[in-house]
């Protein structure tokens, strides 16, 4: 068996005195799509930000393609092939949409993705190219944020709360692009509050509860009741 693309072992992390993750284990194989679900404050976003290198790990280890990521700063993780689509899109508002895409390719990592291919997968972006990124709607911003991440030719794309605050029809449009992205060989780790959306696209789901993994399995093997319990926590007698 080959090594998984991403291997997270006993990962702890937090912000200052506040600890958000307590010994999280997670593996993602190359080509697999894994969804991390959980309630607000369960540590999903912190997990992705720690993997991207924006939040320092306080314990445990993260291996990516066999390489220990401890102490590697965020900008060098991009070169290694990790791209984060951050919560809230975080486009560069003073740059145009096209410049946002080009900044995504700043590192020059080789791969199949360029502006033309991104427009092929996310055609909604095309008419927006000359517009300043600060004036887009939520759905447009999200599409550009995903396109921008793809421009770095990631092996692993971390997609944080893609559907947050968007109309269901817009969310469906975005998720329709996902098979093309996965088909290009990109492994995707998504954080999603919409459980049915997560179950529909993911090969495996992992549920976080208060910074710990409370459930892991495939969409077919986990029961809805178990998810509910893992999501909200059991009331113990």
């Amino acid at each position, binding site marked *: 068996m080959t090594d998984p693309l991403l291997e997270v072992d006993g990962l702890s992390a937090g912000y200052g005195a506040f600890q958000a993750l307590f010994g999280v284990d997670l593996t993602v194989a190359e080509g697999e799509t894994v969804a991390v679900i959980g309630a607000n404050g369960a540590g999903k976003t912190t997990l992705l930000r720690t993997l*991207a*290198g*924006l939040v320092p790990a306080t314990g445990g280890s993260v291996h990516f393609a066999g390489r220990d990521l401890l102490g590697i*700063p*965020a*900008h*060098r993780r*991009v*070169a290694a092939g990790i*791209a*984060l689509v*951050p919560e809230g899109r*975080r486009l*560069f*508002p*003073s*740059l145009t949409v096209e*410049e946002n895409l*080009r*900044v*995504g390719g*700043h*590192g020059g*990592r080789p791969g199949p993705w360029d502006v033309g291919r991104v427009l092929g997968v996310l055609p909604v972006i095309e008419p927006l190219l000359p517009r300043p990124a600060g004036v887009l709607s939520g759905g447009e911003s999200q599409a550009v944020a995903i396109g*921008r*991440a793809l421009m*770095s030719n990631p092996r692993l794309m971390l997609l944080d709360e893609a559907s947050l605050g968007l109309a269901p029809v817009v969310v469906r449009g975005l998720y329709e692009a996902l098979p093309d992205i996965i088909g290009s060989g990109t492994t995707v780790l998504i954080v999603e509050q919409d459980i049915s959306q997560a179950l529909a696209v993911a090969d495996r789901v992992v549920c976080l509860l208060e910074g710990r993994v409370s459930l892991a399995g495939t969409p077919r093997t986990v029961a809805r009741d178990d998810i509910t319990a893992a999501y909200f926590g059991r009331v113990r007698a």
Partner: protein
Amino acid sequence: MSWVNAAVQGVLLGGLFALFATGLSLAFGVMRFVNLAHGDLAILAAYLAVSTTATLDVDPFVSLLVVVPVMAVAGYLAQRFVFDRTIGPDPLPAILVTFGLGVVIQNLLLEHYSADSRGLDAGAIETRSIRLTDDVAVGWFPLLTLVCAVVVLVALQLVLSRTRAGRAFRATSDDPDTAQLMGIDDRSVHARVMAIAFATVALAGVFLGIRQTFGPAEGPTVLLVGFEAVVIGGLGSLWGTLVGGIVLGVAQAVGNQVDVRYDLLSGVLFGHLLFLAVLAFRPQGLFGRKGRA
């Protein structure tokens, strides 16, 4: 007539002011960094040119080939090892550290060069001029200063708007955390921006030294003029900085003209009054975007 002449001289003087302001504008625009030692760095560069011209027996323009690169490297290192540690949501550490640096520079200059006024001798170009009309003459050197300012600001603007590095600078300015997610090393961007800022203020300092005499304590005056140009033009806008410098120069020159005629107040005060008026009525500056900074 003399008013036209005053305005023309003001525009030329504004070129020097714009050069003073360029580094401040750039550092503030990209990393919200306020450098209170900026004026002292200009004076430091002028003294470096004094030493270079004396040691290598070259004229001040040639000394730029030494002074500008030395200052650029100093800026890179200062950002990497000192200034970067002060950058954060709280602007106070940067202000305190650069204020302290300014005091250190002033005292080192006083120690090494004494309190005597110095000047840089650029030869005949300092006094030559082109006579446009009977009343209006344009000095070669002030014209050269203005041309340099325009070239530097246009070049910087082109780098920022057209190149990959400029795109990275602007992305870092918008959102340093997310810029890291694009593979941009924000600390390296900051250091390169500060290198450019130091290089431009070195150029300005040497030009100041050719234009007039200077002493070790002159830095804060330069800083004030630079800040006024930045604020009048609009924080973070390079075009605004050029226009701000020129507007300030014209205000001072016209003020001097009023001063000569009516013996009212000094020309420098006119510049300050204009600055206060901009702050009061258009605080975002002439070219500033509303709601930013």
